[in-house]
Each structure stands twice: as C-alpha cells, then as structure tokens.
C-alpha cells in the first residue's frame, strides 16, 4: 500500500511539473495574434461544448455542431444588431471582427458529436408525427418541409437534429419575445411566428424531445 501511495505521489509530481510547463507555453502564445482565432474558438467551445455538442448549464448552451454556416452567421449578426435578444451572446458577438465572425460560422459545419439527448421520452412519437406531418387541423406545417427530412437545415434554415431539449423548448416558447425584435421586417425569424403561435406547450415539448435524440 505504502509503495503504491508513494508511486502515485511521484507520478502526480511529474504530472504537475508537466502541466505547469504546458500552461506556461500556452500563456505566451495567448498574446500572439496568429493564435487569436484558435483562442476564440476555444472560448466558444467552453460554453457550447468541446465538440460543439452543446452544454446544459443553468441556461442551456445550444449545439452548434453540424449547424448551417449561413444560419450561424445570420444569428451572430442578429445578436449584434439586437434583432435577437440575448445579453450573453450580445457580449460575445459584438467584439468579433467580420472576418473572425465569418470564419467561426464555417467551423462548426463538419463537427458531428453524438447528441446529448435527455428529452423526456414519453411523447417522442407525437414529436415525430408533428415533425414529419405537421398538425393540419391547427395550421401547423410539417417542420421537415423547411428543416429537411433529417432536420439538417439548409442555408439560413437551421439544423434542429440533436439540439438540446431545454434550448429548443425555450426557443419555441419565447419566439416573438427573443427574435425579430425591433420591428425589422426582413428578419428571417418571421417565418416561424405562425408555427410557434399554433403549438401548445405539450406539443412543443414533444418535438423538442424528439429532436434531442436525432443524429
């Protein structure tokens, strides 16, 4: 036992020395502008997950992995122009140079981590039905008509597959309060207004749960 303990302690000391050396190098590079983009990307991933899979904090951080570059770019601009209201992302986005903003938007397209999942499983079948067929009797279109049969999105229309359950539910529930704010007529969020109006809370929850497991 004692010998094992000592070994562990020695390994820990070496590990620590190594970690310190790495940290020191990292710090020096932080000031070098050539590494500015990598540092910014790491910053995004601290909140949005190391592979862009999203993160469940007190506020849900949405999945960006596999997201359409045009959608990401449009949303970042919407945060900056306050068409889309979110204090956290306003702060994040308004310091980005146009070139960095465009490059970041491209980056997440090719990431493909497993979805986090986690939506309640009891109404998934209803979610699937609404996604594929809509609810004609309540004027809800099939989501797949725009978001694609596999919910991968297209250009300004976002991917929904694998999105975090609490995030999708929040997005649908507070649509008009968070998006298309300030009366801008050209805002892409207007397309979703009738859809979100006609869904009940239970139906939103069912769709969000279904999407949370979709690869």
């Amino acid at each position, binding site marked *: 036992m004692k010998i094992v303990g000592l070994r562990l302690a020695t390994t820990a000391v070496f590990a620590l020395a190594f970690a310190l050396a790495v940290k020191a190098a990292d710090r020096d590079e932080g000031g070098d502008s050539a590494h500015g983009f990598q540092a910014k990307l790491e910053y995004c991933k*601290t909140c949005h997950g*190391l592979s862009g899979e999203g*993160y469940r*904090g*007190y506020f849900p*951080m949405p999945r960006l992995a596999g997201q359409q570059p045009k959608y990401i770019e449009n949303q970042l601009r919407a945060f900056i122009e306050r068409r889309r209201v979110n204090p956290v992302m306003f*702060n*994040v986005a308004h310091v980005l140079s146009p070139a960095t903003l465009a490059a970041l938007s491209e980056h997440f397209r090719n990431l493909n981590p497993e979805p986090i999942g986690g939506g309640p499983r009891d109404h998934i079948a209803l979610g699937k039905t609404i996604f594929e067929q809509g609810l004609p009797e309540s004027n809800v279109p099939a989501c797949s008509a725009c978001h694609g049969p596999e919910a991968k999105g297209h250009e300004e229309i976002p991917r929904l597959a694998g999105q975090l359950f609490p995030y999708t539910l929040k997005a649908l529930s507070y649509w008009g309060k968070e998006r298309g704010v300030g009366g801008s007529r050209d805002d892409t969020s207007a397309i979703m207004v009738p859809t979100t109006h006609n869904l009940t809370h239970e139906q939103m929850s069912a769709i969000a749960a279904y999407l949370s497991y979709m690869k």
Partner: protein
Amino acid sequence: MKRITSKPAVLAIIMACVASPLSAQESLPIRNCTWCHGSSAQGYTSAPRIAGQTHRYIENSLLSFKSHARDNPASKQYMWGAAANLSGETARGFAVYFSELPASPANDGDEALASEGKSIYVEGRPASNVVSCIVCHGPNAEGFEGIPRLGGMGHDYLKRRLEQWNEGYHAAAEPMPRIAKRLSANEIEALASYLSFVR
C-alpha cells in the same frame, strides 16, 4: 488564511473516518465531516462550506476525492482519507443531507472589488476570452445540477480553487481548467470577493 494546524488531531479524525464501517451504518456519521467543515457545515479554516451545496456536486466531489481525480494539496491531505471508504450510497446520503442544510454567506471578500467581480461574473470579458460565469452557475450563483453553488462561499477557498487550476491541479474538472486559464490574478481576486457576499 488559517490552516488546520494540529496535525495529530487531523490524523485522528482521518483515522476515525477510515476505521468506521461507514457503508454499514444506518444513520450517517455526520460528525466525521463537521469536525472539519464546522458544526453546521458552514466551513471552517481551509474546509469549505458544504451546507446548501447542490447534492449532485457534493456526490461528484466525494467520488473524485475517492478516485483521487481531485488532487489539490488540501484535498489530498484531508479529503482522500475522509472519502476513501465511502460507498456510492453513503456518498449520496451525505450529499442529500448537506445540500438541505441552510447556508449563510461568508461575507469575507474585499467589498471594494465586489462590483468589478459582479461585472466579470455576469458579462465575462469577451475581448480576452473570459466567459461569463452566470450561464452555468446561475444568476444568484446558486448552481445547477452538477455545477456547484458559489454564492457566499469563502473568499480564500474560491481564490485558491481558481488559482490551483492554473497550477495544474484537478485537471479533470471540465470545463473549469480552461476557464481559469484566462483569468488574471486581479480578476480572480474580484470574483472571489464578489461571490463571498452573494446570498
């Protein structure tokens, strides 16, 4: 900062923890913990407040002491022994018990730095890639599931935790090592000060 000074006393406590068949006991041996963490678990010298902490975080922490993934010097010295014999079930029992105790704020930071600390906590420092803390730890630093409550914890403890990530300790605590890396000494001081006053 005061340390737990009497080595023999501490050793005796650790021995007591190791020796007692924790998992077999029906009621939890709470005194084994409150010896160090203070009688109502509000924290005492280097042992932090655990009263009112989220139960998921307490449970995760106990398991990380047991597996030695949390290897901060004080963890190694005091908690590795205290957690060595905990079964998963006992760890959960302690976690629920302490999470339900009322917590009072330490109020021991530098008041002059509190507003600066709050601004970092809420907004981050986007230009230098410092993330805002509010997104994970919550508007009142109340924590969320496995993410710990920070509001009202002792200034010295919070400061030490943030500094020790930059010294390479507890590297497994994703995402905190990469967050702490971006913080300057002044920012750590301001954050620890602000948080010590949050109720």
